[in-house]
């Protein structure tokens, strides 16, 4: 199983990114799908617009993996909505994925900012 997940991540990086954003959003408090979308939009200073349809597919995927759990509740403006919250596994995943992401951005940054050709490395 473990090996399988890694290969998934490598292939679809964007998908992993959305997962990470969702997990991060849920760290503070449980939230429904629409709230998550709004939150991501707001907190990224309107840079990251999440396609709402894809968001719900991602939510379902995370729920299947038991990284988040969900139950129906009432929203702040008195509407029925499905609220998601982070599970223990999800929290652990968030830590792992965040550090992975940070390593990735650092590595990307190193390469992009250095702007040099390939260098010889020790085997």
């Amino acid at each position: 199983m473990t090996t399988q997940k890694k290969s998934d991540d490598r292939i679809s990086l964007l998908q992993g990114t959305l997962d990470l954003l969702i997990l991060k959003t849920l760290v503070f408090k449980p939230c429904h799908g629409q709230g998550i979308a709004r939150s991501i939009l707001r907190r990224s200073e309107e840079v990251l617009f999440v396609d709402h349809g894809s968001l719900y597919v991602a939510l379902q995927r995370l729920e299947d993996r038991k990284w988040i759990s969900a139950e129906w509740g009432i929203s702040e403006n008195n509407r029925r909505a499905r609220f998601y919250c982070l599970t223990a596994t999800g929290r652990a995943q968030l830590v792992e994925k965040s550090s992975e992401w940070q390593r990735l951005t650092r590595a990307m940054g190193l390469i992009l900012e250095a702007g040099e050709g390939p260098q010889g490395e020790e085997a």
Partner: protein
Amino acid sequence: MFWRKRSAEDFAEEIKAHLELETEDLRNEGLSQEEAQWRAKQAFGSVRAVQEQFYLRRRWQWLDRIARDLRFGFRSLRHSPGFALTAILTVALGVGANTAVFSVMNAVLLRSLPVADPSRVVYLRPSNPPRNTGTIASQETISYPVYAELRREVHAMQPVMAYVPLATGKVAVRFDAVPEEAEGEMVSGQFFSGLGVGMALGHGFSEQDETNHAPLAVLSYKYWTRRFERDPSVAGKTLYVNSVPMTIIGVAAKGFEGVETGESADFWIPLQNRPELNAYANPPEDGKLYIANPKWWCLRLIGRLAPGVSKAQALAQLQPVFQAAAYTGLGNPQQGEKPPILRLMDAKSFPGYERSYGTPIRVLMMMVSLVLIIALSNVAMLLLARNAARQREFAVRLALGATRAILLRQLLIESLLLVTGGGALAWVFAVFASQTLGLWARIESSLAPDRTVLVFTLGLLILAAIVFGLAPLRIALATGVTSAIKTSQATAQADAGQSRTGRIVVVMQLMFCVVLLVGAGLLIRTLRNLEQTPLGMDVNGLVVFGIKPNTQTLAETNAFYRELLTRLRELPGVQGTTIMQERLGSGWSANNNMKVDGRLPEVRNRESRTVRSNVVGPDFFQTLGVPVLMGRDFNSSDTSNSPHVGIVNETFVKRFLHGQHPLGHRIGPASINWDMEIVGVVKDHKYRSIDEDPIPMAWYMYAQIPVLSEMQVELRVHGNPLEIVPTAAKVVAQMDPNLPLIQPMTQRAQFDTTIAQPILFARLAAFFGLLAVLLVATGLYGVLSYRVNMRTAEIGLRMAVGARRRQVVWMIVKDSLALTAVGVLTGAPLAMLIGQALRGSLYGVKAFDAMSYLIAILGVGAIALGASAMPAGRAASVDPLKALRIE
């Protein structure tokens, strides 16, 4: 695996809620309701596409997981092909053998008659038929006049149906130009409608057809397939039965071949009333056919209980009618005669099969289930050993994040793969094996596996899957994440538990093996005894076939046979030829009491007066190779005009003419006034079957008796006896193109049919014994080599501190010998039970045959030694240094 399913409706509701929330937010930002709705929808994209993803994703995930597990299972089995192959073959043999024996048992003992609502169908059987009647089977057959009375009782039974074969074997039929033979039955008009047997083609008979003795025929589906390739245009064509034209009007439903054991009718015709088609091809008795003859009880009856009537009620109505009708035309009962009684017997399954196959098949079923237990436990042990050896792998996988559930699931999938592979192979094996079984046992009814057999086999496979599934369960539960580091400790623990279970299983296997080998030994010795039983004649070079001439008068029939014998004798390669009424080795004989010198003979010690007789032709004993002890053989000068002559055997002389010179005495049947002079005495020899005991016998000369019909021709030839058959057929065709040779076969093969069951029984038992030996050997080998592997370090240590190779070998062998001793000690008493169950099937062997036990015990000992030799050798060649370094 454990997530709760979320419904698509719930998902749709969430989307709806989202759209509403978004719309509301957008409105709060100042958009109009319409625009807000539009923007919310646009931001969402295609709702349908998302819902489809929701739906597909879950399927896909599930499929994906299964596919992944299957791939993993295949891969891990491919890594140990020896294990996989052994396990699959073992399952296939164990389950296949069980399925094959079960499908025979199902066809023979369990399956209902292929009729509608068989629970309402009963056989009508008499006991104590009136004394001066003749029967086919005294507990089964009834006369036509009694049938005619019984069928009137429509309030009890609706209808009563009669059926009777046209001959004991096959009758002559002709469809196109070529004469053939087929099994035919005469039946009531309501036979098909009353039984509720459907028609695959055309229609059945009507009551009118029986009354008019209509010349119509219905074919069986099997015959239609075999002879006519299911040609629908056969309806309306003519089938000549004993040269009488019959119009084919239908084909009975598939699977229906009559309601009697061992018969599989090729065609049916309505009850007839003409001499060519008398019941059992008998010549008319006193000019009376079966229909008019109250003395000849030859019909079998079956009936359907009238609606709402119980079996007891029906019997109460029928009994007085039967008892009154039984004596119609027969005069009053003799003094002291028991009244005839009618019984109704359930037609749930073929009644005769229970008698002739019941015990053997049940014993076989028991033996084959022992084989299955051995086989399944073998694979389970192999799995245990394999999984125990994989403990380090499991521990590593657990440490890497796999859950126990995942481990268990993968192990189960591996087991499932083994069971599926084995099961598929088993089915192929079983279909083939049950056909072979049917051939050997001469069971004519269909053995094709039906739903019951399928359910049985699936049940076995599920059992196997559960047994194999439990083996990994223990490992999966026992393995902890931490044990990855403590491998040697973990394996040491597994070894302790493992060896205890393993030893118990091995002892059980050895025990069953003893039982199977004793059973096989007893049956093989029975078969050898039967095969070596002297027949009292030289059967090599003898071939036999039946002929039923189309002649009208006795003189014509006599002339036909005289001419036939003359022509056959002239054929090149023919050393001798003769004819007889009852075919030797067919199980049939004519039995009656005989007068000696005008009165029933005195017998000592209440011995039976029954004499088995046969009607034979000239040179009978010379052709068979039976020594004539006194007097002479029949010859061509014994004719209808010369004095009546007869020949008897030794036992006849011993019992009825004790101490007298036998030649010249006059003997004859007790019931009629006809006698003949004894002109010869021959040595005892077999008549009906191989396993019969000597009994008084007498032979009539065919040319001198008043009735004559179908006869069996016996030819003695050089070389392969069957090669003469086509030539003989040509000779017969020259005399009458309508006559087929009926059931031509070698005399040896004919006698062998009487021991078909012991042959089958012995072969199967031997096969099961062999299978058990093989399985036990591999099982023992597996367990021992596993234990040697586990003890490599220990053995290395022992050798390092000075143990000799011999001691190490002895340590391993001692172990398996101890197991064997326990297995033999527990197996022997069990084997005695099998011996007891088999008693009725043994010939010339006692149930406690010391030889069979000795061979079985020695055999098991040899297997144990053989199976432990290799592991022991490997243990002895352990290099102490290497072994110690492993730890």
